[in-house]
Protein backbone atom coordinates (compact mmCIF):
# COMPACT_ATOMS: atom_id res chain seq x y z
CA UNK A 1 0.00 0.00 0.00
CA UNK A 2 1.41 3.30 -1.12
CA UNK A 3 -0.20 5.16 1.81
CA UNK A 4 1.45 2.97 4.43
CA UNK A 5 4.80 3.26 2.66
CA UNK A 6 4.42 7.06 2.48
CA UNK A 7 3.42 7.28 6.12
CA UNK A 8 6.40 5.31 7.40
CA UNK A 9 8.91 6.99 5.08
CA UNK A 10 7.88 10.38 6.41
CA UNK A 11 7.60 9.15 9.97
CA UNK A 12 11.27 8.20 9.72
CA UNK A 13 12.13 11.62 8.29
CA UNK A 14 10.21 13.36 11.10
CA UNK A 15 12.04 11.27 13.65
CA UNK A 16 15.54 11.94 12.33
CA UNK A 17 15.37 15.39 10.73
CA UNK A 18 16.81 17.75 13.32
CA UNK A 19 16.79 21.50 12.80
CA UNK A 20 15.06 23.77 10.31
CA UNK A 21 13.09 22.65 7.30
CA UNK A 22 16.19 22.16 5.14
CA UNK A 23 17.18 19.30 7.43
CA UNK A 24 14.55 17.17 5.67
CA UNK A 25 16.16 17.68 2.25
CA UNK A 26 18.97 15.06 2.50
CA UNK A 27 16.37 12.50 3.55
CA UNK A 28 14.10 13.37 0.63
CA UNK A 29 17.06 13.11 -1.73
CA UNK A 30 17.73 9.61 -0.44
CA UNK A 31 14.03 8.79 -0.84
CA UNK A 32 14.09 9.92 -4.46
CA UNK A 33 17.00 7.60 -5.13
CA UNK A 34 15.47 4.61 -3.37
CA UNK A 35 11.92 4.87 -4.71
CA UNK A 36 10.49 5.96 -8.02
CA UNK A 37 8.08 8.30 -6.25
CA UNK A 38 9.74 11.45 -7.54
CA UNK A 39 12.89 12.52 -9.40
CA UNK A 40 15.68 14.86 -8.33
CA UNK A 41 14.15 17.44 -10.64
CA UNK A 42 10.81 17.05 -8.78
CA UNK A 43 12.69 17.60 -5.53
CA UNK A 44 14.16 20.87 -6.81
CA UNK A 45 10.64 21.87 -7.87
CA UNK A 46 9.44 21.10 -4.36
CA UNK A 47 12.17 23.20 -2.77
CA UNK A 48 11.43 26.13 -5.09
CA UNK A 49 7.68 25.93 -4.40
CA UNK A 50 8.17 25.42 -0.65
CA UNK A 51 10.46 28.44 -0.43
CA UNK A 52 7.82 30.53 -2.19
CA UNK A 53 4.78 29.53 -0.12
CA UNK A 54 3.89 29.98 3.56
CA UNK A 55 4.40 27.18 6.04
CA UNK A 56 7.54 25.43 7.27
CA UNK A 57 9.66 24.03 4.43
CA UNK A 58 9.74 20.45 5.73
CA UNK A 59 5.97 20.26 6.07
CA UNK A 60 5.48 21.72 2.59
CA UNK A 61 7.85 19.15 1.18
CA UNK A 62 5.95 16.29 2.83
CA UNK A 63 2.61 17.51 1.48
CA UNK A 64 4.01 18.05 -1.99
CA UNK A 65 5.80 14.68 -2.13
CA UNK A 66 2.73 12.80 -0.91
CA UNK A 67 0.55 14.67 -3.37
CA UNK A 68 2.79 13.92 -6.32
CA UNK A 69 3.04 10.28 -5.32
CA UNK A 70 -0.51 9.39 -4.31
CA UNK A 71 -2.85 12.36 -4.73
CA UNK A 72 -4.57 14.48 -2.08
CA UNK A 73 -4.77 11.68 0.49
CA UNK A 74 -1.12 10.90 -0.10
CA UNK A 75 -0.30 14.51 0.81
CA UNK A 76 -2.28 14.25 4.02
CA UNK A 77 -0.82 10.89 5.02
CA UNK A 78 2.79 11.97 4.35
CA UNK A 79 2.32 15.19 6.33
CA UNK A 80 0.78 13.41 9.31
CA UNK A 81 3.57 10.83 9.17
CA UNK A 82 6.14 13.63 9.29
CA UNK A 83 4.71 15.47 12.30
CA UNK A 84 3.60 12.49 14.39
CA UNK A 85 7.06 11.69 15.82
CA UNK A 86 7.43 15.35 16.78
CA UNK A 87 4.08 15.33 18.60
CA UNK A 88 4.86 12.10 20.45
CA UNK A 89 8.43 13.20 21.14
CA UNK A 90 7.36 16.46 22.73
CA UNK A 91 4.56 14.96 24.79
CA UNK A 92 7.00 12.39 26.18
CA UNK A 93 9.68 15.04 26.62
CA UNK A 94 7.39 17.37 28.60
CA UNK A 95 6.87 14.59 31.12
CA UNK A 96 10.61 14.38 31.71
CA UNK A 97 11.39 18.01 30.93
CA UNK A 98 13.39 18.86 33.99
CA UNK A 99 15.59 15.81 33.89
CA UNK A 100 16.06 16.17 30.12
CA UNK A 101 17.08 19.82 30.32
CA UNK A 102 19.75 19.05 32.87
CA UNK A 103 20.94 15.96 31.11
CA UNK A 104 24.47 16.67 29.91
CA UNK A 105 24.75 13.65 27.68
CA UNK A 106 21.67 14.60 25.64
CA UNK A 107 23.23 18.02 25.14
CA UNK A 108 26.52 16.36 24.16
CA UNK A 109 24.87 14.16 21.52
CA UNK A 110 22.96 17.03 19.94
CA UNK A 111 26.08 19.16 19.87
CA UNK A 112 27.52 16.52 17.58
CA UNK A 113 24.37 16.23 15.47
CA UNK A 114 24.07 19.92 14.56
CA UNK A 115 27.38 20.16 12.65
CA UNK A 116 26.54 16.83 10.99
CA UNK A 117 23.20 18.19 9.76
CA UNK A 118 24.89 21.21 8.20
CA UNK A 119 27.31 18.98 6.30
CA UNK A 120 24.58 16.56 5.21
CA UNK A 121 22.77 19.48 3.58
CA UNK A 122 26.05 20.63 2.03
CA UNK A 123 26.68 17.15 0.66
CA UNK A 124 23.19 17.17 -0.81
CA UNK A 125 23.74 20.55 -2.48
CA UNK A 126 27.01 19.40 -4.05
CA UNK A 127 25.37 16.33 -5.53
CA UNK A 128 22.36 18.39 -6.57
CA UNK A 129 24.60 20.80 -8.49
CA UNK A 130 26.25 17.85 -10.23
CA UNK A 131 22.86 16.36 -11.20
CA UNK A 132 21.50 19.69 -12.43
CA UNK A 133 24.50 20.31 -14.65
CA UNK A 134 24.35 16.76 -16.01
CA UNK A 135 20.69 17.09 -16.87
CA UNK A 136 20.26 20.65 -18.02
CA UNK A 137 23.42 21.42 -19.91
CA UNK A 138 25.18 20.01 -22.94
CA UNK A 139 28.93 20.68 -23.38
CA UNK A 140 28.02 23.78 -25.44
CA UNK A 141 25.73 25.28 -22.82
CA UNK A 142 27.81 24.26 -19.79
CA UNK A 143 29.67 27.58 -19.71
CA UNK A 144 26.45 29.56 -19.82
CA UNK A 145 24.81 27.48 -17.07
CA UNK A 146 27.93 27.83 -14.92
CA UNK A 147 27.95 31.60 -15.50
CA UNK A 148 24.28 31.88 -14.52
CA UNK A 149 24.87 29.75 -11.43
CA UNK A 150 27.82 31.88 -10.31
CA UNK A 151 25.77 35.03 -10.90
CA UNK A 152 22.95 33.61 -8.73
CA UNK A 153 25.49 32.68 -6.03
CA UNK A 154 26.77 36.25 -6.08
CA UNK A 155 23.19 37.54 -5.63
CA UNK A 156 22.29 35.19 -2.79
CA UNK A 157 25.49 35.91 -0.86
CA UNK A 158 25.29 39.65 -1.47
CA UNK A 159 21.61 40.37 -0.80
CA UNK A 160 19.38 39.38 2.10
CA UNK A 161 16.11 39.20 0.15
CA UNK A 162 13.29 36.79 0.84
CA UNK A 163 13.82 33.46 -1.01
CA UNK A 164 10.73 34.06 -3.14
CA UNK A 165 12.35 37.20 -4.62
CA UNK A 166 15.31 35.16 -5.84
CA UNK A 167 13.11 32.39 -7.22
CA UNK A 168 10.77 34.77 -9.10
CA UNK A 169 13.79 36.64 -10.46
CA UNK A 170 15.33 33.38 -11.70
CA UNK A 171 12.02 32.30 -13.25
CA UNK A 172 11.60 35.62 -15.11
CA UNK A 173 15.20 35.54 -16.39
CA UNK A 174 14.75 31.94 -17.52
CA UNK A 175 11.49 32.69 -19.34
CA UNK A 176 13.06 35.74 -21.03
CA UNK A 177 16.06 33.71 -22.11
CA UNK A 178 13.69 31.21 -23.73
CA UNK A 179 11.94 33.98 -25.65
CA UNK A 180 15.16 35.37 -27.09
Amino acid at each position, binding site marked *: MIYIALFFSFFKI*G*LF*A*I*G*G*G*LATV*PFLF*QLSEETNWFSTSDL*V*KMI*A*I*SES*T*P*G*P*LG*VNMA*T*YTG*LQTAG*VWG*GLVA*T*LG*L*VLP*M*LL*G*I*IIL*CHFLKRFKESEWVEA*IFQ*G*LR*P*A*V*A*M*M*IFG*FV*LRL*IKTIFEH*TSTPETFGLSLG*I*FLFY*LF*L*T*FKFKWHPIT*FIVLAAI*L*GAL*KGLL
Partner: protein
Amino acid sequence: MLPLIQKIMKQRGWATEKEILNYYALSQMTPGIIAVNISTFVGYKLKGWSGAICTMIGIIAPSLIVITLLALGLSKIWTDPIVQNAFASVQLMVPALILPIIVKMVKDRATDRFCLVLMGLALFLALLNCSPVEILLLCGFVSFLRFYMRGKK
Protein backbone atom coordinates in the same frame (compact mmCIF):
# COMPACT_ATOMS: atom_id res chain seq x y z
CA MET B 1 9.90 32.50 11.69
CA LEU B 2 11.03 32.77 15.33
CA PRO B 3 10.32 36.52 15.74
CA LEU B 4 6.84 36.04 14.24
CA ILE B 5 6.04 33.24 16.70
CA GLN B 6 7.33 35.36 19.62
CA LYS B 7 5.21 38.35 18.58
CA ILE B 8 1.95 36.45 18.18
CA MET B 9 2.41 34.41 21.36
CA LYS B 10 3.07 37.61 23.32
CA GLN B 11 0.00 39.34 21.88
CA ARG B 12 -2.18 36.40 22.87
CA GLY B 13 -0.52 36.08 26.24
CA TRP B 14 0.22 32.41 25.55
CA ALA B 15 3.96 32.45 26.05
CA THR B 16 6.62 35.07 26.79
CA GLU B 17 9.51 35.78 24.45
CA LYS B 18 11.81 34.05 26.88
CA GLU B 19 9.68 30.92 27.01
CA ILE B 20 9.71 30.75 23.21
CA LEU B 21 13.51 31.03 23.23
CA ASN B 22 13.57 28.17 25.72
CA TYR B 23 11.35 26.08 23.47
CA TYR B 24 13.61 27.00 20.57
CA ALA B 25 16.62 25.63 22.42
CA LEU B 26 14.72 22.48 23.35
CA SER B 27 13.49 22.08 19.76
CA GLN B 28 17.08 21.89 18.64
CA MET B 29 17.45 18.93 20.98
CA THR B 30 14.35 17.03 19.89
CA PRO B 31 13.59 15.25 16.66
CA GLY B 32 11.72 17.18 14.04
CA ILE B 33 11.42 20.57 12.43
CA ILE B 34 11.99 23.49 14.79
CA ALA B 35 8.89 25.55 13.90
CA VAL B 36 6.60 22.55 14.36
CA ASN B 37 8.25 21.64 17.65
CA ILE B 38 7.93 25.14 19.10
CA SER B 39 4.22 25.29 18.29
CA THR B 40 3.70 21.87 19.83
CA PHE B 41 5.50 22.94 23.03
CA VAL B 42 3.22 25.98 23.33
CA GLY B 43 0.10 23.87 22.77
CA TYR B 44 1.23 21.35 25.35
CA LYS B 45 2.02 24.06 27.89
CA LEU B 46 -1.46 25.58 27.51
CA LYS B 47 -3.70 22.53 27.32
CA GLY B 48 -1.71 19.30 27.57
CA TRP B 49 -1.72 16.79 24.75
CA SER B 50 -5.01 18.04 23.24
CA GLY B 51 -3.47 21.52 23.01
CA ALA B 52 -0.38 20.05 21.38
CA ILE B 53 -2.53 18.32 18.76
CA CYS B 54 -4.42 21.57 18.06
CA THR B 55 -1.30 23.71 17.55
CA MET B 56 0.21 20.97 15.42
CA ILE B 57 -2.86 20.89 13.16
CA GLY B 58 -2.64 24.68 13.02
CA ILE B 59 0.97 24.71 11.88
CA ILE B 60 0.51 22.07 9.16
CA ALA B 61 -2.83 23.40 7.82
CA PRO B 62 -1.37 26.23 5.66
CA SER B 63 1.09 23.80 4.00
CA LEU B 64 -1.62 21.23 3.37
CA ILE B 65 -4.08 23.72 1.89
CA VAL B 66 -1.71 25.96 -0.07
CA ILE B 67 0.49 23.20 -1.47
CA THR B 68 -2.46 20.98 -2.39
CA LEU B 69 -4.25 23.79 -4.25
CA LEU B 70 -1.05 24.98 -5.87
CA ALA B 71 0.10 21.53 -6.98
CA LEU B 72 -3.33 20.66 -8.38
CA GLY B 73 -3.52 23.97 -10.21
CA LEU B 74 0.06 23.83 -11.45
CA SER B 75 0.19 20.22 -12.57
CA LYS B 76 -0.59 21.10 -16.20
CA ILE B 77 1.71 24.07 -16.67
CA TRP B 78 5.00 22.16 -16.28
CA THR B 79 4.89 21.03 -19.91
CA ASP B 80 4.64 24.61 -21.20
CA PRO B 81 7.95 25.54 -22.91
CA ILE B 82 8.14 28.97 -21.25
CA VAL B 83 7.61 27.40 -17.83
CA GLN B 84 10.26 24.80 -18.61
CA ASN B 85 12.75 27.53 -19.46
CA ALA B 86 11.84 29.39 -16.29
CA PHE B 87 12.28 26.23 -14.26
CA ALA B 88 15.65 25.43 -15.83
CA SER B 89 16.80 28.79 -14.48
CA VAL B 90 15.15 28.25 -11.08
CA GLN B 91 16.98 24.92 -10.83
CA LEU B 92 20.26 26.82 -10.81
CA MET B 93 18.93 29.27 -8.24
CA VAL B 94 17.90 26.63 -5.68
CA PRO B 95 21.42 25.44 -4.72
CA ALA B 96 22.57 29.08 -4.79
CA LEU B 97 19.84 29.84 -2.24
CA ILE B 98 20.89 27.04 0.09
CA LEU B 99 24.66 27.67 0.10
CA PRO B 100 24.59 30.95 2.13
CA ILE B 101 22.43 29.15 4.73
CA ILE B 102 25.05 26.41 5.02
CA VAL B 103 27.86 28.97 5.38
CA LYS B 104 25.95 30.58 8.24
CA MET B 105 25.29 27.17 9.85
CA VAL B 106 28.99 26.34 9.68
CA LYS B 107 29.96 29.71 11.16
CA ASP B 108 27.50 29.22 14.03
CA ARG B 109 28.42 25.63 14.72
CA ALA B 110 32.13 25.28 14.10
CA THR B 111 32.93 26.23 17.67
CA ASP B 112 35.89 23.92 18.29
CA ARG B 113 38.19 21.44 16.59
CA PHE B 114 35.96 18.51 17.50
CA CYS B 115 33.03 20.08 15.61
CA LEU B 116 35.26 20.57 12.57
CA VAL B 117 36.29 16.91 12.67
CA LEU B 118 32.65 15.84 12.90
CA MET B 119 31.77 18.12 9.99
CA GLY B 120 34.52 16.60 7.87
CA LEU B 121 33.34 13.10 8.77
CA ALA B 122 29.68 13.90 8.00
CA LEU B 123 30.51 15.50 4.64
CA PHE B 124 32.76 12.61 3.68
CA LEU B 125 30.01 10.09 4.49
CA ALA B 126 27.36 12.19 2.74
CA LEU B 127 29.42 12.27 -0.45
CA LEU B 128 29.99 8.50 -0.16
CA ASN B 129 26.21 8.16 -0.41
CA CYS B 130 25.69 6.99 3.19
CA SER B 131 22.11 7.37 4.36
CA PRO B 132 21.31 10.43 6.53
CA VAL B 133 20.16 8.18 9.36
CA GLU B 134 23.50 6.35 9.41
CA ILE B 135 25.43 9.63 9.44
CA LEU B 136 23.36 11.03 12.31
CA LEU B 137 23.63 7.86 14.38
CA LEU B 138 27.39 7.71 13.88
CA CYS B 139 27.98 11.40 14.70
CA GLY B 140 25.68 11.19 17.72
CA PHE B 141 27.57 8.12 18.92
CA VAL B 142 30.97 9.79 18.45
CA SER B 143 29.87 12.86 20.45
CA PHE B 144 28.48 10.66 23.18
CA LEU B 145 31.72 8.68 23.29
CA ARG B 146 33.75 11.86 23.62
CA PHE B 147 31.49 13.08 26.42
CA TYR B 148 31.80 9.73 28.20
CA MET B 149 35.61 9.64 27.90
CA ARG B 150 35.91 13.16 29.26
CA GLY B 151 33.76 12.29 32.24
CA LYS B 152 36.07 9.40 33.09
CA LYS B 153 39.21 11.50 33.25
